[in-house]
């Protein structure tokens, strides 16, 4: 399961077919250099965003926006976490550790 997921993820994000990679990359948020790779992202209700810690330090991605609360806790480098958003609205996503890291996921 784990190995399969790794393959999946590699497929979705680092996939050899550039057209796939480019589109898929829109759905993931990278954290290299203590910044989110995008400031804003749009998804449909029930869709997921993959938060990828491709940095050298742990990150704690979370949100307290009503209906879409989540807290990934301290996520080690080399770990990606999918988060599915079920309520339409604007989700303010932060990293609890690094105040420079802020972004918005718009769910509609």
């Amino acid at each position, binding site marked *: 399961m784990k190995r399969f*997921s790794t393959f999946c993820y590699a497929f979705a994000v680092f996939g050899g077919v550039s057209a796939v990679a480019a589109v898929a990359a829109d759905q993931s948020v990278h954290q290299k250099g*203590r910044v989110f790779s995008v400031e804003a992202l749009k998804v449909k209700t029930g869709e997921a965003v993959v938060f990828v810690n491709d940095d050298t330090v*742990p990150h704690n991605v*979370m949100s307290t926006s009503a209906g879409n609360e989540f807290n990934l806790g301290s996520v080690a480098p*080399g770990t990606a976490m999918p988060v599915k958003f079920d309520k339409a609205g604007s*989700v303010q996503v932060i990293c609890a*550790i690094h105040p420079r890291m802020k972004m918005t996921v718009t769910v509609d």
Partner: protein
Amino acid sequence: MPNIVFRGPVLRSAALACLASIAAAALAGSQTFAAATIGAPITVPVPAPQKGSAESLKDEYRRPAEIPFPASNPFTPEKLKLGKTLYYDTRLSGSGAQSCASCHNPGYGWGDGLAKGVGDGMKELKRRSPTIVNAAWGLIFMWDGRAPSLEEQALGPIQAAVEMNMPIEKLLERLNSITEYKTLFEAAFPGEGITPAGIGKAIATFERTAISGWAPFDSWIDGDAKAISASAQRGFALFNGKAQCNTCHVGWNFTDDSFHDIGLPDADIGRGAFLGVAVKMRQAFKTPGLRDISRRSPFMHDGSMATLEAVVEHYDTGGVARPSRSDLIKPLGLTVEEKADLVAFLKTLSGSSDVIAQPIQPR
């Protein structure tokens, strides 16, 4: 899962299998209340940390050429003059005995040399007075991050009962009764009179000019190979390597402006007061910069460490292991020599100490 466009039959089936597995994983880890659903963690390849040359590592520590002033409060010499005068004026406190400089004194590396600040009525504060040196580069202020800007921060201690204990209306009245202040405010903020916003902007402008001086470390970064000792050079390598201090003390000012619990034994919850839902923020404090560090012992938010040797000893043991402690803090296994090298390195960060002229206070 998101609307990923997959091309070709083989890729498509692989992709569908992927989606199914991720969806299943998401369900497995699902929470029951109305909230976003967290899926199972996925291991991803992380590019190995670049084993850059010593030279490219040095580039990360080069001093910036200019002080950043925000567009909302650009530098003017008039604001600087007013701000410096206010900063040193004890009449900003209710007792008339304390100024900002009482606790953020250039003579003590812009701190006060005490383990905990001493406020109105000589009462001890909860935490140590931090330095304001290089605050121009700061992102968020106070040990627990409760102040978003220097402009807003300045009005806090003036009014805080435990610190300067001066209601803002009373302060405006007092400043208005001093003719020279009217002139200083008019020059800095023409036509605006004496306002709380003006006080904040002027003091912030002055604070942004409190910069750490050129240090032996800077000469070394600049190419003078003999500017720091061999021991300090080994300390620099440890700082960026085995001791991994640079995972939090980042860049030329040695801070990530972020919050970590480094395992100090006191009970202060720090950042936890604002982000208590995040376990890692309970007992987390803002990473202090390390410029001019040897000028402002004792160290830490509670002033609990008298020397840099004690600080390095703390990191070597990893402090109190608890859920909130940063994953980056763990026993380091440093040798006696390595500890001495780290301390030698930290001591190269203190700059030339210019004499700072105190302003003559307006009457």
